[in-house]
């Protein structure tokens, strides 16, 4: 009886139709751009049916590691690779910016629908030095709001992520105390707060715990209708995150040759301060025809792909950056 079951199973799987061998590229990395990347790869498959690009979001660090191990053809990361990591990967990895994203401080305080925050207060909240909603610093920024005399429940990410990297990068820039006590990274030693797994986890905790605040990617806040705070940028304007604000942040930054740049706390009146690039990681030299395939996709991405981004909540690259990236793409072999 057991043998029959096994025999049937074996037959069924071996008899599975053998599909015509299409060319495949595999990529792995950041979860943040997964929706837009999957849209791009699906659309590109329609343009080029004989190529399948399979991208899985296993995390930026995972993407970097798999690229180094050469188990995937390209990687994707929200945080640039460190020099050490590039060395391990053979000394040369191209960072190609694709889209932009933003972190927003989502909150849940009864009776409060709009909130203004600036860098130092945000850092204070996440450090635990600002512990109550009616702390003088918060009241000063929000004179009209009815802030309760209640403890702030801080929510952060428990899993390592580019979202955390972007947020802590910003906090490190605006608060010396944060930079020395905690620092920036995909995982950090949070002084206070509950840890939620993934953007979903943080959203869930913020929604369910009264008087809480957490940081999530813009798309999650937009899609879930959770109120999020306006943050004061370097130019002194309070801005709520938006696609335009993020693109403005990228435009205002001097782009280095290897594109590894942080755009948090960017200058410019319209720039949203907690923004980040996300990159595709590609080797300059690739085996077989993979280089050509990747190049062809990237050219398509810079033209048609970019147009699809805003509808999904991602900011496209500013024109100045696009032109530079196009040149770099041509150097891929």
């Amino acid at each position: 009886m057991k043998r029959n079951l096994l025999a049937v199973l074996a037959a069924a799987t071996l008899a599975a139709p053998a599909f015509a061998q299409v060319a495949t590229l595999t990529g792995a990395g950041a979860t943040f751009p997964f929706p837009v990347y999957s849209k791009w790869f699906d659309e590109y498959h329609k343009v080029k049916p004989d190529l399948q690009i399979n991208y899985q979001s296993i995390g930026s660090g995972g993407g970097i590691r798999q690229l180094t191990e050469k188990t995937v053809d390209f990687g994707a990361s929200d945080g640039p690779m460190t020099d050490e990591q590039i060395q391990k990967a053979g000394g040369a990895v191209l960072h190609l910016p694709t889209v932009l994203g933003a972190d927003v401080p989502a909150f849940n305080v009864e009776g409060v629908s709009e909130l203004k925050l600036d860098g130092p207060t945000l850092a204070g909240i996440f450090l635990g030095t600002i512990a109550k909603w009616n702390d003088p610093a918060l009241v000063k920024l929000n004179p009209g709001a009815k802030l309760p005399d209640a403890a702030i429940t801080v929510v952060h990410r428990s899993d390592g992520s580019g979202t955390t990297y972007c947020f802590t990068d910003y906090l490190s820039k605006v608060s010396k105390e944060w930079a020395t006590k905690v620092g920036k990274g995909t995982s950090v030693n949070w002084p206070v707060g509950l840890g939620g797994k993934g953007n979903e986890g943080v959203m869930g905790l913020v929604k369910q715990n009264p008087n809480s605040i957490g940081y999530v990617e813009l798309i999650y806040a937009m899609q879930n209708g959770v109120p999020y705070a306006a943050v004061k940028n370097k130019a002194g304007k309070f801005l709520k995150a938006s696609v335009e604000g993020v693109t403005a942040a990228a435009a205002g930054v001097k782009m280095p040759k290897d594109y590894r740049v942080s755009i948090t706390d960017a200058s410019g009146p319209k720039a949203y301060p907690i923004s980040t690039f996300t990159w595709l990681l590609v080797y300059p030299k690739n085996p077989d025809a993979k280089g050509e395939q990747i190049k062809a996709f990237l050219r398509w991405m810079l033209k048609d792909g970019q147009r699809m981004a805003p509808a999904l909540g991602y900011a496209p690259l500013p024109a100045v950056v696009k032109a530079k990236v196009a040149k770099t793409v041509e150097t891929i072999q």
Partner: protein
Amino acid sequence: MNDAAYARRKRVNALMLGLTAVCAALSAGVLFAILGYIAWKGASSLSLSFLTNLPKPVGESGGGIANSIVGSAKVVGLAGLMGIPVGVLAGVYLTEYGKGSRFAFLVRYAADVMNGVPSIVIGLFAYALVVMPLKRFSALSGSVALALIMIPIVLRNTEEFLRLVPGTIREAALALGIPRWKVVLFVILPTAGRGIMTGALLALSRVAGETAPLVFTAFGNRFWNQGWLNPIATLPLTLYNDAISPYEDWHRQAWAAALILMMFVLAINLTARLWLRPSAPAH
């Protein structure tokens, strides 16, 4: 006989047995609550096209999980083919040949320890074993990871039930002059068969829902799966990715996938029950 004492004993009896009924009702009740919740959340997104389509990009409706369903069946099936024989035969070793030997003690111990290893660590192990040498993610590596998870469960279970086979049966068969290996395969195993199969199926059902070990092995695939040495889509992975995405549409798909997964698992369990019933020894 003291009437009062007897009455007390009867009361204690009723109370304790009543409590056990409550326990059973609670346990079964929880399951129905869970199934009901999944059905409630997932049923609205179920449709034939959902089952036969490939995933669609964001913003387009009509995406499906066809590749995940086939992928799960493949990976779990292969894992069972690898894991069940190893578990059962090792269990045979432990009960028939290994009594008291130090090697058997170590094997049993090793199996128990493997059982406690988080599935993600087993996934990493399979990554080092299969993915790195082959330099690619594959269905094969996913199956290896799942088989490694299954083996201790099947082993423990097989051992437990082989041990319950009365020694008299074994001795009677041997006394008839039947070779040892035939005694084991055709007399002892069938007698314990029901318990062993239940355990094997619990193990299969369990690994069918595993996500963590498949992240670094089977990897996932948005297109049709090709063969055994390529990345492959599986239900739990697709489910998880959809559930943690920002889109309401994908959330609904996640719950529908969860419903499909539960039905998949229900099917395995039901089949086992129906098939094994005729051969069940009378209690």
